């Protein structure tokens, strides 16, 4: 089952959990199931039905620009971190 590392500033939504196993074979499924387990998390990670553009997703340590429909291995570790754009600057980050 994929492991989602919870950003420090939204751990108030996950009872302080730093990382949680979440069912899902796509990014969308993982985020929706995370939302079911910990309501409010999806709103912090997504802008509508996409990853928030100011957030970068690391899968197994590699920064990737994923779409919601992209598949996730069952042993994947996901991190949601401030996006680093060309030159390293985007909007003001949410966490």
């Amino acid at each position, binding site marked *: 089952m994929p492991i989602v*590392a919870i*950003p*420090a*500033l*939204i*751990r*108030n*939504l996950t009872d302080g959990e*730093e990382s949680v196993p979440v069912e899902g074979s796509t990014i969308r499924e993982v985020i929706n199931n995370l939302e079911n387990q910990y309501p*409010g998390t999806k709103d*912090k990670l997504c*802008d509508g039905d996409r990853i*928030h*553009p*100011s957030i970068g997703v*690391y*899968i*197994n*340590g*590699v*920064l*990737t*620009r994923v779409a919601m429909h992209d598949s996730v291995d069952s042993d994947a*570790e996901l*991190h949601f*971190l*401030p*996006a*680093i*754009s*060309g*030159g*390293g*600057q*985007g*909007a*003001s*980050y*949410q*966490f």
Partner: protein
Amino acid sequence: MSEKKEYKVIGTRPIRHDGVDKVTGRAIYGADFQITGLLHGRVLRSPHAHARIVSIDTSRAEAHPGVKGVVTAQDLPTAEDKMADLGEGAVNLKYLCDNIFASDKALYKGHAIAAVAATNPHIAEEACELIDVEYEVLPPVLEVRQAMEPDAPILHENLTTSSLGDTEDKPTNIASHLQHKKGDIDKGFDEAEVVIERDFVTGTVHQGYIEPHNATAHYNQDGQLTVWCSTQGAFTVREQLAEILQYPVSKIKVVPLEIGGGFGGKINVYIKPVAALLAKKTGKPVKVLMNRADVFEGTGPTPASYITIKIGAKKDGKITAAQTSLAFEAGAYPGSPVGAGAMCVFAPYNIENVLIDGYDVVVNKPKSAPYRAPGATNAAFGTETVVDELAEELNIDPLELRLMNGAKEGDRRPDGPVYPRIGFIETLEAAKEHPHYTSANGKKYHGRGIASGFWFNIGLESSVTINVNPDGTINLVEGSTDIGGTRASIAMQAAEVLGIPAESVNPTVVDTNSIGYTAVTGGSRTTYATGYAAYEAAQDVVKQMKARAAKLWEVDEDNVQFADGEFSSINGKEEQISFRDLSAKLSQTGGPVVGRATMNPAGAGGAFATHVVDVEVDVDTGKVEILRYTATQDAGKAIHPSYVEGQIQGGVVQGIGWALNEEYIYNDEGTMTNASFLDYRMPTCLDLPMIDAVIVEVPNPGHPYGVRGVGEVPIVPPPAAIANAIYDAIGIRMTELPMSPDRLLKAMGKI
């Protein structure tokens, strides 16, 4: 040190493809651009750092002979207060537009208020003086700690702090708070036997690119907008123009001309929308150029910052805990690189317990812009100075302390992800073995310092097309603007695949109508990602040409192989043909071959660097002289070693300037008092020794040739390395940048 592979083109040093045009002055830059009927635009800028705009009357300017049009924020479409995705990250649309022309408030001295198009630039400049603007002057706030005070002047009445996933109600200058937490910070400091905690201040610094911003815009009668300009990314200009002007991307063509430096500062747009608005209003092409004062006062520098660093270690040298608070000046609108700084601040080290807090704070200065490893230099100045002090306290060699705690493959970064194969330890070992580090260093007022640094590097989108010519050369079409020799480094990757010399590749950087989407030349991504696209496009060519050879030899495609520039059959017929000879037969075997690739590679691979510097401090004047400088850096694989060395040397020089001299000096009213290259002192070749660039090659598994981006990390270590060298020379820890003569004299108690 590295896993060596044999290459024919990669690792060689051919002459860059654009070299002749540049050294002979034939290359066309934005200011050179001419078109029939051209008008000239100038921008009126706010004389106040913080002021409400009561009224703007342009009537006198419009009546001035030779003036063809005047524009203000009123000419921009009404911008929504919403986030827009520009492909390079999200921006608030209202903030983006307000930075083009102030609508209700001027938020920094130099903020654009209006612009004039006229028959020549002098008339445009005169007419700017005829625009009557009534201001209600407000007190400015110019420093991050003051801006964070509860009673500080507020820049944006609707800005509240986004923190802990929530947004507060009270207006503030603190746009956001971010945090990374790993392990148990209290436990980590409890375990420590030595704890060092220091505060650091860094100044506002400009990228200092030699070529000022420029743009020429023209609307055709059918509404097609074309913009010729200097930029790090034609497609991001197109996206920004589309959002700011609320105009379809399909009706905008951006033509990137040659670029005279950017370093991150030519990603955001400033006068490009202004030129477009003036062109629309006048019906003529309009060229807008900045002068140097415009560049300093009206474009984004890298932010000043206030940083606290606390690190604890056991007596054996094991670092047990690290904590930091990073407060970065975003400038007039939110969006400093504090996020990147927070991710880099302890990245070189494997530390079990970490707490990182970052604050993005608006102040009455130009909206900050990226500058070479944005945020990382500020952060490393703090961390690497404290690590040096820790080494002294523990009586451990500073390189050994870094080797003991340095991050390796499999270690978890402070912000969470696990490192893939990285080369930090190898840069430390290279520095340790270098004759510079092993040489004597004992003269009075001479000192030696070391420091390390990290930058992520990024991938993002790149597109490449390759057209095979009948003479065995190729035309390589790309969308990455060439700042530091990337035509060559991209061409060489295609040449290696095809088994042809680098000189047989004609690389061309084209406009947004002529190639697939390509992200900016920034984030140290171009040789990595566009080079990867060139590799894949060349593989596409090979695949197609194998089919042509198969047709020629009447064999199955699977029976054709390609190696070292030769196609051969593997079905016993012993047919063989070179890439060049087969290129001549394309018309007989089906017509042209065009290879293509688009990439969005995920494995950029982080870059590390370790620097060693010797300085001499003149204790009478406070001047610091750089005596010797050695920079070791993991390049993954150096495609063109000369340009890797050039990037390292250039980054070091900019880091030295940041360390010793460069800063925006403001008066109390918020006016920059040194907005020229005479007073904003950048280092020249007369100030510097030859920088010894040592390339370490730990191949990046995320690239077919092992490439890592090299352009940004060399600017990260210099300020800390020099501060540590100054301490070694005179026994004083400098904690504020720049470490200019007056600051040194004050620190020595001489003034």
